[in-house]
């Protein structure tokens, strides 16, 4: 592992190092295992080498784009958080990850991206502020449509139309899933004792956005907040492993060296668009001035050209 691998992920917000659960899972796993990753926090998915986030650029296998693939790759590179687990605990990990993906993740997607109030007032607002011009006009909407389609395929078309039915069934199962996680965690520090494993990374990445985001309509959030051990669990992981980049909004300066690279990368863009807009404004004004004849350039001997037309105009004015 001569050169560190490069990870492109969504920037932080709401007190988290990254707002997207997949990116957060990869970041957390990397922190747990101490994998040397050069992290680029971007707000523009088109800047990642594969076009979507998270993306890991490796020397051996090119660009990996799915969270599970990235974590498997890190494991193969000997950054294995599950090294100390027994076979039975490894089996439990697979089972609980499936539980999260089947029961909790779709409802999380619904809460953030499909629920009308949350989407308009919170999610879309954050992404529209974060993504640079001009992508911020259509990217959030496109992501919304993609997530909606994904939910329709998973749940069936009829389910999404009937809001009440949906809320009752799916949210109930998600609440049950949260309660089950809470029971499984009990009083322990992490799911398998005292050191974190990949299951902790998955659970944290799904729960933390739900816990930290200020959602206007948050039934699921309230249920999570009522499960004290899960809240403490998330806060302890945040304070232990992400003590200083508890994500500010990308416009203000983050304090870690890891994201300084990202900061200087974003700065020239900001500067560039500012300069560009000033130039465009100036060009528009000058062009209008020329076209409407307010200012004109006359070709004549240098020096004499200036005063003479003005003198002539003055004479004309005097005559009149």
């Amino acid at each position: 592992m001569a050169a560190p691998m490069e990870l492109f992920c969504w920037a932080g917000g709401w007190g988290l190092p990254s707002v997207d659960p997949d990116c957060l899972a990869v970041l957390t796993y990397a922190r747990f295992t101490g994998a040397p990753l050069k992290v680029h926090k971007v707000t523009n998915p088109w800047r990642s080498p594969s076009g979507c986030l998270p993306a890991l650029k490796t020397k051996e296998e090119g660009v990996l784009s799915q969270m599970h693939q990235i974590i498997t790759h890190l494991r193969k590179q000997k950054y294995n958080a599950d090294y100390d687990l027994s076979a039975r605990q490894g089996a439990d990990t697979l089972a609980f990850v499936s539980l999260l993906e089947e029961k909790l993740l779709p409802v999380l997607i619904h809460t953030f991206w499909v629920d009308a109030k949350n989407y308009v007032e919170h999610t879309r607002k954050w992404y529209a502020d974060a993504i640079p011009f001009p992508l911020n006009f259509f990217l959030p909407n496109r992501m919304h449509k993609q997530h909606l389609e994904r939910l329709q395929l998973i749940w069936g078309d009829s389910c999404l139309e009937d809001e009440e039915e949906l809320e009752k069934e799916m949210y109930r199962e998600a609440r049950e899933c949260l309660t089950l996680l809470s029971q499984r965690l009990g009083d322990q520090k992490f799911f398998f004792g005292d050191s974190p494993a990949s299951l902790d990374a998955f659970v944290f990445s799904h729960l933390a956005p739900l816990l930290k985001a200020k959602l206007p309509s948050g039934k699921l959030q309230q249920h999570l907040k009522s499960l004290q051990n899960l809240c403490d669990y998330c806060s302890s992981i945040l304070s232990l492993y992400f003590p200083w980049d508890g994500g500010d909004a990308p416009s203000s300066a983050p304090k870690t060296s890891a994201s300084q690279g990202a900061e200087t990368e974003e700065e020239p863009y900001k500067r560039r668009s500012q300069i560009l807009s000033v130039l465009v404004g100036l060009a528009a004004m000058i062009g209008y001035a020329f076209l409407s004849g307010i200012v004109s350039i006359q070709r004549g001997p240098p020096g004499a050209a200036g005063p003479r037309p003005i003198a002539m105009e003055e004479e004309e004015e005097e005559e009149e």
Partner: protein
Amino acid sequence: MSLVAEAFVTQIAAAEPWPENAALYQQLKEEQILLSDNASSLAVQAFLQMCNLPVQVVCRANAEYMSPSGKVPFIRVGNQVVSELGPIVQFVKAKGHSLSDGLDEVQKAEMKAYMELVNNMLLTAELYLQWCDGTTVEEITHPRYGSPYPWPLNRILAYQKQWEVKRKMKAIGWAGKSLEQVLEDVDQCCQALSQRLGTQPYFFNKQPTELDALVFGHLFTILTTQLTSDELSEKVKNYSNLVAFCRRIEQHYFEDHDKDSSASAASKSSKGYLPS
């Protein structure tokens, strides 16, 4: 349904005992049913057997369309129709029969998690194999799926279903997987199940639960169904305790029905018994 209506229905469900003429609907056994649907149907049958509730298996070509959620199998009990294992378990619980009452909270959490593991990995792998793997699609799935219908309806229905399944695979990120990766996932899933089962007779020691029914349904179907290649069943055969588990449940719960047993009935020229 609003909460009040559902409570009302649950009351009615609880009030009526299990009738003699409960029926389970699935597609035609010999010609039409596919691997994944057969597995789900067998899981429900095993569950009802374990609860000692009699049910009659009825085969209809349009079972998929009759089902309230679009998935088979579904059961008709009295004048109520419930589909898929999860809701059926809850429905049966409302009637007072439950296999998982003796479990404590942590065990219930584990049971639910392992059931989701089977649904997430095994079922999705079965769907992938059936609908996204070229040879299987051409030789087995397309001919079987529309077989009760005349041409061109059979082709249209098959292509429609294939398109739908492929979209779903894309949405959950399985579209980019190769067959080897899918088989690798099946292997991981079987390994997890095998480790959880260990040397116990059932997943939660002495008594079978809905998890046992679900695992049995899928593994037995994989073991006894003939596909274009044996790779899928080989993955399961690697784990001897899982094979023994399936045999144990088959002998215990399905040995009464001999020839027309749904467990041993032919499906895609299945071998009808577990290979030793």
